[in-house]
């Protein structure tokens, strides 16, 4: 996994966006593995691909963009 804020991702990589950060992961891993690769806890995260929710065991394809949403809030 690489933090991609400075360099563009390779064409076949998977882009993962979380808050203002962008990461690159390799295709073929699952959503859950991608969440963990970004150092996050899947229990508190939702993932969308093309604006639609995807479950944790979905396998990521080359060129996918995955958006992660933190669900913990409070004060």
């Amino acid at each position, binding site marked *: 996994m690489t933090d991609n804020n400075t360099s563009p991702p390779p064409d076949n990589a998977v882009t993962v966006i979380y808050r203002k950060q962008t990461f690159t992961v390799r295709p*073929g891993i*699952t959503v859950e593995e991608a969440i963990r690769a970004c150092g996050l*806890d*899947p*229990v*508190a*995260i*939702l993932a*969308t691909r093309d604006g*639609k*929710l*995807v*479950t*944790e*065991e*979905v*396998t990521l394809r080359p060129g996918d963009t995955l958006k992660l*949403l933190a*669900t*913990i*809030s*409070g*004060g």
Partner: protein
Amino acid sequence: MPKRPRRPLRCRHCDQKAVINMRQHKLALCGPHFVEWVHKQTERSIKKWRMFTRDERVLVAVSGGKDSLALWDILLELGYQADGLYIGLGIDGGVHYSDQSHEYIRQFIAQRGGDLTLHVVDVAEVYGASIPQAAQLSRRGRAKPCSLCGLTKRHIMNRIAREHGYHVLATGHNLDDEVAVLFGNTLQWAVGYLTRQGPLLPPSHPGLARKVKPLFRFYEREMAAYAIVRGIEYVYDECPFAEGATSIRHKELLNQLEAQSPGAKLHFYLNFLRAREEHGLFQTVQEQIELHTCPTCGQPTTNEGQCAFCRTWERVQERVGALPHTPQGANAP
């Protein structure tokens, strides 16, 4: 050898692709069946706890966040008489937090044809100072205004519900909120709070609305998923003052437990309620709490004399001239 892609999880009811997998229920659902499930579960909680009926008027406290907007949406979809209450706290935090929150509520109403009732109370306009300003001027929370904010919101919610004749005041607290509070109170053995915590709080005083939390069985991620599936836009950024909050740390800890044992949060909370309702846990404490009436605002208080809200805001208003830009329209609490 490359891994073969796994077959995506399918909805238990229709075999379409699932959008959510709820491990604690061993239940995966597609978008439409998830929405149906959320509605059924909410209706079940409302009925089981006798929160309110379709003849009663419900005031939903909306903040612009996922939970409160989801709650308003669910109650409207279920056919309840639900109006909204937005409290403008005047929190900016460099992101116009309060303005942004209000905008999401306006958007929600516009998407539903614009004919919903929303009560708006701007704290600075009504009481003379925003929440961050008041925190600076009072003894409460100079560094962090969260306690003053909670105190003020509770007072305003009670006041608006009473003035407009609502039977019920509904908030969007979800299971993670409830479990984090329960965990915090248990660590402190805060028996007074443990006695009162629950999805239904009967009115402690004449003229007060009962307080209900119809989403108390849903995990926070389920409510975020509901908002996404229903196309509800909500304020995603955290309140600027929530950074480093104890409740967030507790939620993270509890999620670690949940990852190891799916359902741990749900069982912790439901078994607590059961222990209290069925086995009389904290019953003697409950009987000892005596409430008084605040001579200024008429709301209940645990001590004799003015309530904490009136004491604090009187102090703020005495000092409000010290602010560089004093908002107009200050009224006594």
